[in-house]
């Protein structure tokens, strides 16, 4: 059973803007609220809030950079989030394959 998902991780990656930010950080290696806001249709302030959510979930790490903070993705934590996302769908894929096998076996036995 794979229902145990980490709430903070789920809500952190459950937002399209935050996922886009993760993509940008992965592509560029690192970024600040200012550099990210150049690629996204939201304000720098909104980006800063999203970064705080990602930070709390452990998905990004930051270091001071002048008046801003420089963010990069925490690969281990991201891998964990990805694994959890994949888990839920993969569990259903496996169940559906079993349903198919069982139903088809019964159908064949009825046809005999």
């Amino acid at each position, binding site marked *: *059973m794979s*229902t145990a*998902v980490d*709430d903070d991780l*789920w*809500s952190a*990656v*459950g*937002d*399209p803007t935050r*996922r886009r930010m993760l993509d940008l950080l*992965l592509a*560029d*290696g*690192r*970024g*600040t609220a200012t*550099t990210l806001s150049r690629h996204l249709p939201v304000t720098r302030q909104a980006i800063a809030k999203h970064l705080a959510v990602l930070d709390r979930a452990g998905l990004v790490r930051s270091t001071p*950079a002048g008046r801003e903070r*420089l963010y990069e993705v925490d*690969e281990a934590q*991201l*891998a964990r989030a*990805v*694994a959890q*996302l*994949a888990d*839920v*769908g*993969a569990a*259903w*894929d496996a*169940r*559906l*394959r*079993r*349903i*198919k096998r*069982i*139903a*088809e076996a*019964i*159908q064949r036995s*009825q046809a005999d």
Partner: protein
Amino acid sequence: MEFGSIEREIYVEAAPELVYDVVSSPEHLREWWPDDIELDPAPGGAGRMTFGRAGDPDAVVVPMTVVDAERPHRFSFRWAYEEGEVASSTNSYLATFEITPSGTGTLLRLTEIGFRERGWEAAVLEERYQQNVVGWAYYLPRLVSYAEGLVSPR
């Protein structure tokens, strides 16, 4: 509030009625999901799935409540809320099987929504991420070191 879902489809070479019975009856559920189950597969019917051997301290009991049961079209239930609670949109998953005739068999569609009414939209992105899991694990370290060699931090 985001409200997304996991969606899956599978073609089954069997009659819709048969597919309906496999996804809804306790005797069949036991074959494809929990180790044991008690379930009244009628609207409002309650059930309990057991994962692990009943009575074993490691066994997990998961309550479920049937929402729709329209043979052979649709079977849906809420599950994974705490025992003793009443299933609702804020404390459970809603899994729905939709069953439609297709060719000589049946198209079975599964939708699951509502992890505390959020987060599931992320699951739609799952496929993209899933594809990228291997890619990231493999390419990311290279990409990062490559990028660091090329570009000075902004």
